[in-house]
């Protein structure tokens, strides 16, 4: 089982190439994790229902190390952390989108799921093979032999990530 709560353990490496699953604009959390399935908070179980109504073949065919690529405002709608958690459970390496809804963006970072704001992501086609250099903030498309620049995380968030994320930061604060 993919343990979403074990920090980096078992997370795929975005530097390794994987298949891009491409979605459009305004993909809301109801489409990522339909409401009827979020009675569960188990990443593996949630993964079996990821994008179930929108694109049923996703959960059947997604491989650990694959990428989710989307247009504008990915993860809009509800605050359910079950949405990024379902992608963690599916072994999604990173989410690359032209823009994100605010709560999804925070939740993903809190779960250790890399999220990249990449205005050029619309050049990526479904099935392309891509990888992400998180340090450089560059998405490489092997299928098209192209690269796209992602926005750097704000300094504050970068520092939070470097301290091990919000949970590690909070633990340290409570222990301090």
């Amino acid at each position, binding site marked *: 089982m993919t343990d979403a*709560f074990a920090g980096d353990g078992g997370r795929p490496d975005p530097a390794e190439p994987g298949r891009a699953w491409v979605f459009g604009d*305004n993909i*809301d959390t*109801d*489409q990522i994790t*339909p*409401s*009827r399935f*979020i*009675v*569960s*908070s188990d990443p593996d179980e949630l993964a079996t229902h990821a994008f179930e*109504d*929108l694109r049923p073949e996703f959960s059947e065919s997604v491989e650990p190390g694959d990428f989710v690529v989307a247009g*504008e*405002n990915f993860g*809009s*709608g*509800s*605050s*359910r*952390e*079950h949405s990024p*958690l379902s992608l963690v459970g599916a072994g999604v390496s990173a989410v690359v989108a032209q*823009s994100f*809804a*605010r*709560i999804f963006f*925070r*939740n993903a970072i*809190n*779960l250790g799921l890399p999220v990249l704001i990449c205005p050029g992501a619309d050049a990526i086609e479904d099935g392309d093979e891509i990888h992400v250099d998180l340090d450089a903030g560059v998405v490489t498309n092997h299928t098209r032999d192209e690269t796209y620049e992602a926005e750097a995380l*704000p300094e*504050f968030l970068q520092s*939070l990530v470097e301290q091990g994320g*919000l*949970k590690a930061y*909070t*633990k340290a*604060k*409570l222990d301090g």
Partner: protein
Amino acid sequence: MSGKTLAEKLLSAKSGTDARAGDYVEADVDVAMAHDITGPLAFRTFDEVTGDDGELFAPDRTVFTIDHHAPADGVQAANNHNAVREFAAKHGAHQFDVGDGICHAVLVEEGFVGPGDLVIGADSHSTTYGGIGAFGTGVGSTDLGTALATGELWFRVPKTLRFEVDGDLQDGVYAKDLILRFIGDVGFDGCTYMAAEYAGSTIESLPIHERLVLSNMAIEMGGKTGLVAPDERAESYLERQTGNEVDLADAFVSDDDADYEAVHSYDAAALAPQVSKPSNPENAVDVTEVAGTEVDQLFVGTCTNGRYEDIKIVADILAGETIAPNVRMVVVPASKSVYQHMLGTGVFQTLTDAGAVIQSAGCGPCAGYHQGVLGDGDVCLATANRNFPGREGSMESSVYLSSPATVGASALYGEITDPREVETKRYDDTVFAEVLP
């Protein structure tokens, strides 16, 4: 240097800094909330960061509700409910149970939130509290779980997008129509990373139950919160409703020379009733554009429009009438006190006589869980806040969003109907208080 917005002032005070839009601050949280969907994940985070002997930052300002799958519609939901009950009891937090109502209705009615508070809720419609001048914002379960332990959370101080409305609304036009128009104009992500602020003479004259509608749906344009400057109207509403003493000196309002990202101005009198077409709230059009669209289900309720005044507006229209054949109406009060008021004032009888089905208080079919899920091809007109693909059930169903008055008028004819064609009422805040037992 320019003055500050309400959002900048409130986050400055809570963080002990001189915060401006764009700054990152760590702020003290006044109230934290989670419900039966988001609670269990937050508890896991809390237990993980605190170990076995964790204590809540403030049990008296921590509230858990059981509203999304209430009463339980399956074993997993029932187990989630038990997890909420156990965690709340173990840590001494406030807990509301099946039938008590939707978190956002309960927190306001029961006096947990007040002007000037920083409120985080593990539910995106936590923006609602902006209607009484609190900075309410939705967070995920990890954010909430850590804040339950520390009472603190980081925020990027938002820029503010201001909506100024002046003049008198037409009969049959309400705050719901205003917010649908705002969302239509700026778009589904038009307020992302920003606070919405609603101002102008129209907003000042709106009763609190309507201001809460504006704030509730700020998230439907991506807003981090949706604020109305707290005033005497908010003060008297809260004091009457909750018995709490409210001191506006503890609250915040924007400076006259505050710096806004943009100001959108509206003439209230020119606004027609609005309907958001499937499948996004930003698809707002004048009701006249979709009038005549046949519907299968009408849904009255949710944290947006499930208050007593909303349901009474529908009952006024349906009094002595019968809902059109082949159309079903599902009514879900936002709270137990709304439910009891409906019983006490005859609204319950009026609606059931007209043919409506009334369910216990909670979120109802809003998110497609239960109590009125839509099938393939079904068309629903709802007082809800979201109409995403499959939101209330089948991916082949469609949801239109409108005010309670538009739903009431449409129930008479079985098709989307301009509420200006029927007699509609408008209620101030005292209608709820007057019939309090």
